[in-house]
């Protein structure tokens, strides 16, 4: 049967991918806007369309604990959460990474309380950026679907063995129906292969994992996590290449859009970048040499890639969908740090946008283009940050 588009929300795209992965264990607790992932997946379990053992738990802390236990025993274990749910599983999120368990967790990015807000921003996963997980961000529902398979392969790679968060924007993609082209089950099966990771706990050789680790070895173990992260990008590149061959869709660590002759670029992650591309096409019609740069991964941070790509431009506007109160926001700060020793570097401006799901409109992004033109000509506003579209 020829591949064709079907209508799926971002959440359904995640559930569909999880169905095709057919994990051994899913332990999850519902939280808006992640709920439809677990709802849909539970339907697959109830219909016998997957062999997964679905563990219903009483909180996200238990969800991640059960996932860690299952993964340590050698199961392909998955979970999904959002915002306050991620916050509640916090303690075990770190343990999953430091125990080097290849767990894939779906994240539907949502603003953290308070006040309570159920809509999309990146404050949840940006807060977890030092937890030791790989993070991949998805622009649209097709990317959500595709990223699950690549995430699984990255996590289970023997040189990596780290958990991965597959992020998408709450409501903006999670609850929006778009065209998604799923791959036949057989293609997925061949791509993900059989799990090589046998787990840490075996009956033949019983031992304890994650016990007390004080001044004598803790430090060394932390450095090992960093060393593992350093091996991730070559693995991602190889997996993206293989994915393109099997699925016919090509992904790069950093997506560049109309950058060949660009003077200025807008950089950002997830759903806003679709709107950015439309704004760029319209600006190009007016003869403005503007492009877009979309890092797909935030952890590990693709600093070397960005250094190479961004040094070509006069000015870069960096969109963060989260804030770091009392400092500058994360994507901006880490990008700027890459250029500390460079003699060739672009002028940079930070934009905090879309907090709590505030719509980042075409009009607001057109203003960013105008700003960046001015910045590239005068240098005024270099290394400053502004809230895009906030009411004063």
């Amino acid at each position, binding site marked *: 049967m020829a591949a064709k588009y079907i209508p799926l929300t971002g959440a359904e795209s995640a559930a569909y991918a999880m169905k095709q992965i057919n994990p051994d264990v899913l332990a999850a607790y519902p939280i808006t806007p992640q709920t439809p992932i677990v709802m849909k997946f539970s339907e697959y379990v109830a219909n016998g369309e997957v062999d997964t053992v679905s563990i219903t738990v009483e909180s996200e802390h238990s969800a991640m604990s059960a996932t860690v236990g299952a993964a340590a025993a050698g199961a392909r274990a998955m979970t999904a959460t959002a915002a306050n749910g991620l916050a509640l599983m916090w303690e075990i999120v770190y343990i999953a990474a430091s125990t080097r368990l290849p767990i894939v967790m779906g994240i539907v990015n949502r603003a953290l309380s308070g006040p309570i807000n159920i809509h999309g921003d990146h404050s949840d996963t940006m807060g977890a950026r030092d937890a030791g997980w790989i993070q991949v961000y998805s622009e649209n529902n097709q990317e959500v679907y595709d990223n699950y398979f690549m995430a699984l392969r990255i996590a289970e790679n023997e040189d990596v063995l780290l958990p991965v968060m597959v992020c998408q924007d709450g409501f*903006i993609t999670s*609850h929006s*129906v*778009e065209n998604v082209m799923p791959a036949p089950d057989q293609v997925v099966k061949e791509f993900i292969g059989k799990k090589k990771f046998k787990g840490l706990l075996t009956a033949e050789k019983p031992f304890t994992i994650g016990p007390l680790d004080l001044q004598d070895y803790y430090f060394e173990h932390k450095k090992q996590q960093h060393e593992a992260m350093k091996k991730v990008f070559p693995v991602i590149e190889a997996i993206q290449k293989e994915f393109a061959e099997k699925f016919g869709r090509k992904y790069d660590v950093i997506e560049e859009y109309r950058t060949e002759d660009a003077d200025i670029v807008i950089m950002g992650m997830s759903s*806003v970048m679709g*709107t950015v*591309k*439309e704004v760029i096409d319209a600006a190009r019609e007016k003869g403005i040499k503007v492009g877009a740069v979309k890092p797909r991964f935030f952890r590990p941070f693709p600093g070397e890639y960005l250094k190479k790509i961004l040094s070509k431009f006069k000015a870069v506007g960096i969109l963060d969908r989260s804030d770091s109160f009392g400092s500058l926001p994360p994507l901006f700060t880490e990008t700027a740090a890459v250029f500390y020793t460079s003699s060739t570097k672009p002028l940079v401006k930070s934009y905090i946008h879309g907090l709590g799901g505030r*719509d980042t409109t075409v009009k607001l992004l057109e203003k960013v283009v105008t700003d960046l033109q001015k910045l590239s000509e005068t240098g005024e506003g270099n290394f400053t940050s502004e809230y895009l579209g906030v009411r004063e």
Partner: protein
Amino acid sequence: MGKVFEITWYGRGGLGAKTGSILLADAAIAAGKFVQSFPEYGPERMGAPIKVYNRLADEPIRLHTAITNPDFIIVIDTALLENINFGEELKDNGTILINTEKSPEEIKKDLNLGNTNPKIYTIDATGISIRHLGKNIPNIPILSAFSKITNKIEINEIKKHIHDKLIIKYGEDIIEKNIEALEKAYAEVKNERN
């Protein structure tokens, strides 16, 4: 990207605006189009006003923003009319479809049109729904009227998707009644000239 056709639905929780919008998306994808269907979520509950959006295009849709300047506005509950500024919101040469027993001429005086002169259509979707289904779920007659007015989607494509989407949840009998309502609405939609 080519032209994107944008639709805003004004409804209330429970009247099927979201399901209608998803049915439209499903049918349009099956017809080879690119779509989006997304609701504007607030503290949603039965009876609360809601807005749902559709985008339709021949090429992939990349915009991830709310629709503020639609080509087409659908109003499922006339009690919402006084809060809609059609004159400002609707695109030039846009179209309005309202669920009401009234004719377009009669309902026109209740609309905030400003200086604009959009095409106005009416359909008694609630009446049709109650007669055929025994309850007020006007989304199917609305979709039928939309199909006739815009030619953006074939009525047969909608029929097929009503069947596929609702068969498990509601069974053959309800599907048949929905199809009847669909056909009735297709015949009954009114514009200002009839």
